[in-house]
């Protein structure tokens, strides 16, 4: 390994250690915010691994997250299965689901994909509610574990770290190289012999996998689960905004977007809850018109400018 690779790696290790110590210094309110931020770090980073290079905007995070939370709740509440088993099953189900959706839509242009994922969470929620009401009896699902907030936080940190390691490995692999070419020009990619559809599908499956894991881990936090709670379309949009705000062309980009946005979002939800939708819209517009490459892009542009002056 060269020096250029060792330094970021060390920074990464230090950050993970610092993040792991958070529950010892923060508690109650601040720990719950840290937990939310950690959840979005895992989701947004994983989202950016797929959407950054391919420019396919996925709004499926909410659906996969819901699959994770809902399966854990159903398994534990109705079938007495262990949390860990259900977590593994839910991640598997979401990965397969993502694979099927990817195969159906990723061969086509990006618009079809966005539209398909746009209503996905809502569609699955309708389906799940219908099945529950007609065949299983409509009752709430309880997720009772002895996890504390700190435990959940550490599990999310582990997932987030895994996402970063995954992203780092992708970046160094043939797959990552293929992705970059697809992002630049898909026709060229096809001509040099890259199976563009499969490359995209595999990456999309990874977002399904990680989102379901996060959903499964978050489930004990709510303890009472119903479809309306876990299949939230809003989550998908938040993930997209945070990732784009940070910047999707660097692995650590979404991280830079998640932390400030979580804080602002939290503040707005408490003080002016009626303003959240409007704020979400303004955030989208701000990103498109003023910071198309996110904070990272802005920062890199400023640095390039200051260099050219010297």
């Amino acid at each position, binding site marked *: 390994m060269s020096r250029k690779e060792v330094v970021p790696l060390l920074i990464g290790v230090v950050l993970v250690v610092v993040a792991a110590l958070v529950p010892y210094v923060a508690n109650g309110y601040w720990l719950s915010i840290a937990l939310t931020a950690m959840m979005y770090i895992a989701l947004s980073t994983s989202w950016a691994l797929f959407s950054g290079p391919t*420019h396919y*905007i996925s709004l499926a995070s909410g659906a996969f997250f819901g699959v994770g939370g809902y399966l854990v709740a159903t398994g534990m509440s109705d079938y007495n299965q262990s949390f860990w088993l259900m977590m593994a099953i839910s991640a598997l189900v979401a990965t397969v689901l993502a694979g099927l959706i990817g195969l*159906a*839509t990723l061969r*086509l*242009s*990006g*618009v*079809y994909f*966005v*539209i*398909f994922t*746009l*209503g996905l969470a*809502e*569609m699955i929620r*309708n*389906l799940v*509610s*219908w099945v529950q*009401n*007609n065949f299983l009896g409509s009752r709430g699902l309880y997720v009772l574990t002895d996890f504390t907030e700190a435990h959940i936080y550490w599990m999310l940190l582990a997932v987030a770290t895994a996402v970063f390691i995954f992203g780092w490995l992708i970046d160094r692999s043939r797959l990552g190289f293929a992705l970059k070419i697809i992002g630049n020009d898909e026709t060229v990619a096809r001509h040099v012999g890259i199976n563009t559809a499969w490359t995209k599908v595999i990456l999309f499956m990874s977002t399904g996998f990680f989102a379901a894991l996060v959903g499964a881990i978050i489930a004990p936090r709510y303890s009472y689960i119903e479809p309306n709670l876990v299949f939230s*379309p809003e989550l998908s*949009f938040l993930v997209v905004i945070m990732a*784009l705000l940070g910047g999707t062309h660097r692995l650590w980009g979404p991280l830079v977007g998640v932390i400030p946005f979580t804080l602002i979002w939290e503040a707005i939800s408490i003080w002016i809850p*009626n*303003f*959240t*939708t*409007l*704020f*979400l*819209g*303004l*955030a*989208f*517009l701000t*990103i*498109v*018109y003023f910071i*198309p490459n996110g904070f990272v892009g802005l920062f890199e542009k400023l640095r390039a400018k200051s260099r050219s002056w010297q």
Partner: protein
Amino acid sequence: MDILISGLLLGGTYVLIAMGLNLQYGVARIMNLANGEMIVLGALASFWVFTSSMVSPLLTLFLVAPIAFVGNWLIYRLLLVPLVRRAKNQGQLEVDSILATFGMSFVLVGIVVSLHGEYFTYSFLASPLSILGTTVALNRLVAFAFAVVIGLVLYLWLNHSRAGMAVRAVAVNPDSAKLVGINVLKVSALAFAVGGAVSAVAGVLISTFITLDASVGVIFTMKALIIVIMGGVGDIRGAIVAALILGLVETAVATLIDPGLTLVSAYLIFLLVLLFKPQGLFGRAQT
């Protein structure tokens, strides 16, 4: 028979929604995800005017249409043209316009919520009427009739007028349209504005028989998109057939299985289209 008639009536309204989006996406090349919010705004206007001064929604139409036309024209000129200019290729414009219209959609929902957070409930022409043994509400029938008339006018305008021809030329190929002296930007703005006006009018009509609220816009956007894709982008004929199919299938599923599954059935259709006919019902395979 019940299903057939109510399905066709529902499909008639879907035709109108899809036509609005088809003009915006097929001609102006903007995937407008705030389209459903135009419907909601139209419905809100109709609700307001009706409850405050008892003016028939059928008259409000003529007020809403020009306002929506100007509003959408401004949105295109002020917000979307910069994106068109900035985009290096069609793919980038698609991503940018999707994100920007998402933003607009949320802003509009936020505004509508602050204006009127509850359901837009009012009762207009809610008397029963019997057609071929099926009882339908009069308001549905009137809305359907208006949808047919508006659709027909739009069809004639597109196919038998100079402006309509320019619009169709841009829909086929913007670059070639430029060569024959068409101002593509101007025509796109026109198509976008007309599309928005049609959507708002559809909102007025829908609000007479469906109770709307601020948050349902996205459902309409979804359905309109599914119809446009099923019918083939830019293909009015295809959109009509697709809208009727969707209306029929949804009504059938709602009456025979469960009303909660309409979105699921729409998705099923969408999936089948994507798998077998992604270029639309009457579309030819792209080269």
